[in-house]
């Protein structure tokens, strides 16, 4: 499963979002994910990939695509 698919899986389960409506362009607001959903998703993704997503970085995510891109970048760094 790709990193994007795994991230989608985690976020959809935590925030109870239908995966069908999740695209890279979707904002968290459009997906109806609240601040706690986002924090819990960050925690779950950090755990899953053994990476860190600083809050300062997370605040810069404009949409789901930015989120996925950051996770992909950190996973790639780990090799």
């Amino acid at each position, binding site marked *: 499963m790709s990193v994007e698919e795994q991230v989608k899986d985690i976020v959809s389960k935590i925030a109870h979002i239908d995966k069908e409506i999740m695209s890279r362009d979707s904002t968290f607001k459009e997906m109806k994910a609240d601040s*706690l959903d986002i924090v819990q998703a960050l925690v779950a993704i950090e755990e899953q990939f053994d990476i*860190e997503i*600083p809050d300062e970085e997370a605040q810069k995510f404009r949409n789901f695509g930015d989120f996925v891109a950051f996770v992909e970048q950190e996973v790639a760094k780990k090799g």
Partner: protein
Amino acid sequence: MKPLEGKLALVTGSGRGIGKAIALKFASQGCDIIVNYFRRREAAEQTCEELKQFGVKTDIVKANVGDPDKINELFDTIAERHGHLDIFISNAASGVGRPIMEIDSKAWDWTLNINAKAMLLCSQRAAGLMEGRQGKIVSISSLGSTFVWPTYAAVGVSKAALEAVTRYLAIEFAPKGISVNAVSASAVATEALKFYMKEGLVKDMSSTTPVGRMVTPEDVANAVAFLVSDEAYMIRGQTIIVDGGTSIALVPPVTEKSENK
């Protein structure tokens, strides 16, 4: 000999803020420290570097104390690596700031689990490692347990529960030789709070604090250090307030700033 020499303390959430200040205070008194963090390993490592300057031993264990399985992993690791514990500080906290009508079940559970349930579950495990060691447990609360701040309902309730758990533990653990107390502070000038002040979400409370400045993490650490000392032996199940007098000043003090308004 330093007062805490030969002792081992676990401080949850000690990568930064109040937890870090407590860890540094203990280390300055000769205590070995287990630094616990949730998400920022770099901050925890930095804390350890600073602790080592006092010549104490340090260890780092990651754990989300809002998750009972992770609490068990944390204490299993401590048992395996150290086999005992003298001091446990329940400091790690989180919370959802929302008006009461917007607090849903998920926000409630998240806040209560990290802020209150963790104290119960961690203390149960800590007690097993403190047998015959005159253990000390201190929880970190806030004035929101008693007083009302906007959007603080979930955290305030969790802190009230934390203080109640502290009292019950104090009585049930007394025969085991373990003392349990809490330290409660008003808004503490941590990096997190400074960020919120900069964003305009929280006001600088210096002018409404009778002593004329905000509470610092070191002020809280000093009270915690007293509660784990032998001098505090007969203090059990109490919540010591560290707020520069804010909570008992019914009318905020008149300062030069407010006089000029």
